[in-house]
């Protein structure tokens, strides 16, 4: 399958930064058609800069950006067939919803503007809001207008900058699922920037984990979570207990009161405290070598008391062998 978007050794250096500090440092990856690609990383890792380079809002210092095998590195944003949903949505406040949606089509001299607008308004459930101004919309409605305004141009790639960050926390899980199913329905490749690992794990087909302007690891959510290649990747995607060079995730640790019949190394420990988290319980056990081990259990699996002696073990396949 030919990728719809490819970055080759893309580097961005801002002149106001020290010469050795790259915002994006020789990054390469490709995005397959009709997939959801997440750029994940802590703030300042270069993920938003990467998105802006793809959109053409910034130009790279070195490297190439290819859209359908065509080099678009030097193309201005208004020529690229990619579209961005900004974090603030950036809806035009002096235009109605209808005018916002039609803006791009007018600029690109598309035909059938009326019909395309109506289809988008139906797709994103904006019926009845056509004549409102952005100031009269809720956060979720603004986001749907921003999506409609971009998707109606049928871009090769839709870029989303922290699409859930500006939304009410109670709304996020719902919008996450809606965005994912929207992506499936329109069949356009989405490239999404996020700092939230759960968002990336739940939505993406491919996660590209970034750190310090570099690509740390790329792969399916399962792959990156279960087979992280670095300690940073392992820790960023979820909690890890480090025992020497071996990492073990809290939910992979098994606990029992009596000695289990397994041919695995079984560690002895003492329950230090348990924290009730609703659906699950976090248990901290002090091991014989005095190291603390965090364990995560389903609420129904936990009937341990502080001070109790427990046996702890895990599957060899759950061990993350990553020298520190």
């Amino acid at each position, binding site marked *: 399958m030919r990728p719809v978007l490819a970055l080759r050794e893309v580097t961005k250096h801002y002149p106001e930064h020290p010469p050795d500090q790259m915002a994006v440092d020789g990054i390469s990856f490709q995005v397959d058609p009709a997939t959801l690609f997440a750029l994940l990383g802590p703030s300042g890792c270069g993920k938003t800069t990467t998105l802006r380079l793809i959109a053409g*809002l910034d130009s790279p210092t070195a490297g190439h950006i290819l859209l359908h095998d065509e080099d678009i590195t030097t193309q201005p944003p*208004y020529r690229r067939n990619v579209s961005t949903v900004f974090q603030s949505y950036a809806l035009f406040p*002096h235009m109605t919803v209808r005018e916002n949606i039609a803006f791009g089509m007018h*600029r690109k001299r598309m035909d059938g503007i009326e019909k395309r607008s109506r289809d988008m308004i139906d797709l994103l459930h904006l019926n009845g809001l056509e004549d409102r101004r952005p100031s009269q919309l809720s956060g979720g409605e603004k986001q749907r207008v921003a999506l409609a305004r971009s998707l109606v141009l049928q871009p090769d790639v839709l870029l989303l900058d922290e699409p859930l960050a500006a939304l009410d926390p109670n709304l996020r899980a719902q919008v996450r699922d809606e965005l994912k199913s929207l992506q499936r329905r329109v069949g356009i490749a989405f490239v999404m920037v996020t700092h939230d690992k759960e968002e990336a794990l739940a939505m993406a087909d491919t996660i590209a984990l970034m750190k310090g302007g570099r690509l740390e690891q790329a792969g399916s959510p399962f792959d990156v979570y279960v087979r992280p290649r670095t300690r940073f990747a392992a820790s960023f995607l979820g909690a890890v207990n480090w025992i020497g060079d071996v990492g073990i995730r809290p939910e992979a640790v098994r606990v029992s009161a009596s000695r289990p019949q397994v041919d695995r190394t079984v560690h002895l420990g003492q329950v230090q405290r348990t924290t009730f988290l609703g659906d699950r319980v976090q248990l901290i056990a002090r091991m014989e070598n005095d190291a603390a081990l965090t364990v995560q259990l389903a609420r129904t699996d936990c009937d341990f008391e502080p001070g109790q002696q427990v046996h702890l073990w895990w599957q060899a396949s759950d061990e993350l062998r990553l020298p520190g």
Partner: protein
Amino acid sequence: MRNARFWFLAPARLVALCLLAAPLVIVAAYSLLTRGVYGGQSRPLTLESYSRLADLLYFGIALKSLLIALAATLICLVLAFPLALFIARSGRRRNWYLHLVMLPFWTSFLVRTYAWMFLLRDTGLINTILAGVGAIAEPLPLLYNDGAVVLGLVYGYLPFMVLPIYATLERMDTALEEAAADLGARPWVALATVTLPLTRPGMIAGSVLVFIPSLGAYLTPDLLGGGKSTLIGNVIQQQFTSARDWPFGSAISLVLMMLVLAAVTWLLRRQKGEFS
């Protein structure tokens, strides 16, 4: 609680009363009096000052004042938008440029207007240089005409247009222009369809700030227009000085103020209805 509010607001009320309401009442009272034989004013109360305003002469002067103030406002608009845009996009040097815009305020307006006279008069800098390089044989008539008055007004009130437009541009989310480019708008199209319409509140505020003092200006037309360019401001000034007709001067002032007030209220109402 209500009592506390009354006393805390009292100083502001007092200032408004003494400096705004009282002078207005005095002017209104004067406008109803009769001009005294040796200047001054006395009873009986009369509306004569207002009926004299119906004279075609004053209508002509008012119309001319209106046109000159409109011209000054329009020219300020055209000059100020690119200037404000330039300053808003100048990154770190922004504050430096803003100070330059406000620098003229450090000198008296009168002195600056005299400086223009030195530049524009027949033996002034511009004519001397043009004659020196042989570009003209006769000095150009740059001073003492309506053009010079408009020039002086534009020069004097340009900062009042630049600053509100700059403030609107400064507050604008930069992502809006990026979104326009992202949706296919070339830079000029983005400027015309997004930046310019969103600057309207600043333009309207600036226009009000330039138009009102331009309409009532008397110093600039007096010095740069010479005797040939009498505007409504000069007429008012003359009533209070050489003509010694305070009732008539008060009447013109009040009518002018009411007209401007009505126009500005209408403009701001319209503006308010549009963005909400």
